[in-house]
């Protein structure tokens, strides 16, 4: 059995309540952290090697140490619970099933960062999770884990849930802060980074739900114990939300370092591909990361087994590798059409572009249009290189990484599946027949 940090008690009935959560060791980290200095807790987080679970994988301890300590302004911890990256559904799962895991993490982390007011920015559509969190927060206030002088200490914290309004871009941390300030979710230019100029112009840390929920275990068991789990710089466990053509879609907590093959085929996880179909491709870390064909997702270009770690999935760079990203693991069997799936994701990015930068606003729209015509049998051979060209012209030329998030899937799909795009141009009848005949045109 692989190590469980977050989901160990997931099947305990009533684990969503404070009482049962405490019976299973919940909230111990608050007491322990309050008995330590904030620098001591920070040291444990640094030692743990924990990396941000929201997608970028930035070391959490390092991010926390950048927080401007000289400023006399208040400091804020903001939890990013905007989860909207297609294929990703781990944060919603965690918040709905074990809300106190996040709340405990928020308290321990806020103490360490010196924040006395913290916010959980939850995607607006997740009203169910919002209601669950709000109730859990009330329980935590009643039990003395929140509010003034927590557990008799000098430390006080108020914690609030803030609903978003429906906009993928608000998952980008500076857009999230704008949104939390009651504005449109337009990302800010960086620098300054939130650690210096964040919420209301104050030093702020933005962390993903899972990242924050990992903190209590690190405080309870020590950074070294956490770092002992996993491989190399990929320490600890990771929640992976698996979907697509697999026998057992769902959220799995894996020890970083298991093989991709094991994750896809073992009964402990995805349980293989249904109906005896063959694996065609995988998008391993949410829709924004490069897609890989079966031979490159199971083994690296040099023939090493591919592991579920930041390093191994990244092996080969963008030529033959991908990213662990958010942990949104989408599996495609041999019947899936790469062109159609790419068109759908590109439509998504065009829809979600905030419109501030012309390469992103216009480029995503052009790519969507070109992909749509290829998918519908009206493409030209030159369209394929045109797509590559547009993708290149977006990359690196925008305020926020949504531009890259839209460009990478296009570049990688054409790199690995060019023949399929060509086939759509030469012989449009060969694939996607029902789409060609307009039956599903409405959903465009």
């Amino acid at each position, binding site marked *: 059995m692989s190590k469980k940090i977050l989901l160990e008690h997931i099947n305990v009935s009533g684990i969503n309540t404070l009482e049962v959560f405490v019976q299973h060791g919940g909230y111990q980290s608050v007491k322990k952290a309050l008995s330590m200095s904030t620098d001591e807790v920070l040291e444990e987080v640094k030692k743990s090697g924990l990396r941000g679970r929201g997608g970028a994988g930035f070391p959490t301890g390092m991010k926390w140490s950048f927080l401007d300590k000289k400023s006399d302004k208040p400091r804020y911890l903001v939890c990013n619970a905007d989860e909207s990256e297609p294929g990703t559904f781990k944060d919603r799962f965690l918040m709905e099933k074990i809300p106190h895991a996040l709340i405990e993490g928020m308290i321990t982390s806020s103490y360490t960062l010196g924040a006395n007011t913290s916010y959980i920015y939850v995607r607006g559509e997740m009203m*169910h999770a919002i209601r669950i969190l709000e109730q859990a927060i009330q329980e935590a206030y009643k039990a003395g884990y929140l509010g003034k002088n927590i557990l008799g200490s000098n430390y006080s914290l108020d914690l609030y849930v803030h609903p978003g309004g429906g*906009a993928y871009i608000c998952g980008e941390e500076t857009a999230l802060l704008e949104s939390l300030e009651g504005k449109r979710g337009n990302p800010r230019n960086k620098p300054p980074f939130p650690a210096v100029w964040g919420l*209301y112009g104050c030093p702020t840390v933005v962390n993903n739900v899972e990242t924050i929920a990992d903190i209590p275990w690190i405080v309870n068991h020590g950074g070294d114990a956490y770092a002992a789990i996993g491989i190399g710089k990929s320490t600890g466990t990771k929640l992976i939300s698996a979907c*697509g053509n697999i026998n057992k*879609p769902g959220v799995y907590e894996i020890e970083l370092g298991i093989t991709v093959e094991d994750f896809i085929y073992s009964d402990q996880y995805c349980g293989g591909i249904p109906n005896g179909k063959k694996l065609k491709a995988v998008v391993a870390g949410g829709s924004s990361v490069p897609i890989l064909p079966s031979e490159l997702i199971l083994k690296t270009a040099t023939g090493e087994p591919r592991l579920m770690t930041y390093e191994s999935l990244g092996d080969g760079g963008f030529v033959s590798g991908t990213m662990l990203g958010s942990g949104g693991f989408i599996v495609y069997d041999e019947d899936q059409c790469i062109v159609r*799936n790419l068109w759908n994701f590109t439509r998504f990015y065009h829809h979600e572009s905030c419109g501030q930068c012309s390469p992103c606003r216009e480029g995503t729209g052009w790519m969507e249009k070109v992909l749509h015509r290829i998918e519908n049998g009206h493409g030209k051979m030159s369209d394929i290189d045109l797509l590559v060209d547009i993708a290149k012209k977006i990359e690196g030329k925008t305020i926020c990484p949504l531009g890259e998030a839209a460009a990478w899937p296009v570049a990688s799909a054409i790199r690995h599946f060019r023949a399929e795009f060509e086939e759509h141009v030469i012989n449009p009848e060969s694939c996607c027949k029902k789409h060609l005949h307009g039956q599903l045109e*409405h959903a465009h």
Partner: protein
Amino acid sequence: MSVLSASTIQEIQKIKTRYPEGRHKSALLPALHLAQAECGWLPVETMNQVADVLDLQPIEVYEVATFYTMFHVKPVGKYVLEVCRTGPCCNIGAEELIQYIEEKLGIQVGQTTEDKLFTLKTVECLASCGSGPVLQIGPEYIYHENLTKESIDFLIAELKTKA
């Protein structure tokens, strides 16, 4: 004239206290959710009153309401069915189900039935890809997962009796 009830206004005033002094603009998204839950959608008069309660310029409310997809700035039916149309859900039949609902209700995506009971919309990935196809129904935003034609029939019949 007040379009929002006293209890909604009171609720908004309470939400203001979650944010630091002078940062009451932060209460705008939660306030718009409350206003929409009460009015069904966000007519200009409603947005103006939200501006009033939060001490903002009306334009600050309009520009936010139009940025976020959850806010309806045009009239909608009593029940807004929002079906996920993103890749993973489409690969397990979401498009066919959208078409099925269109035929069943006699409307297209974006339209409202004549009896003003249902509006059909599409949304992007609802973080439910492992249990798709999925749709949500406001104002409570309840998710209905693992959708089939049968479960859609059942759901629509149930909403009709409830109405």
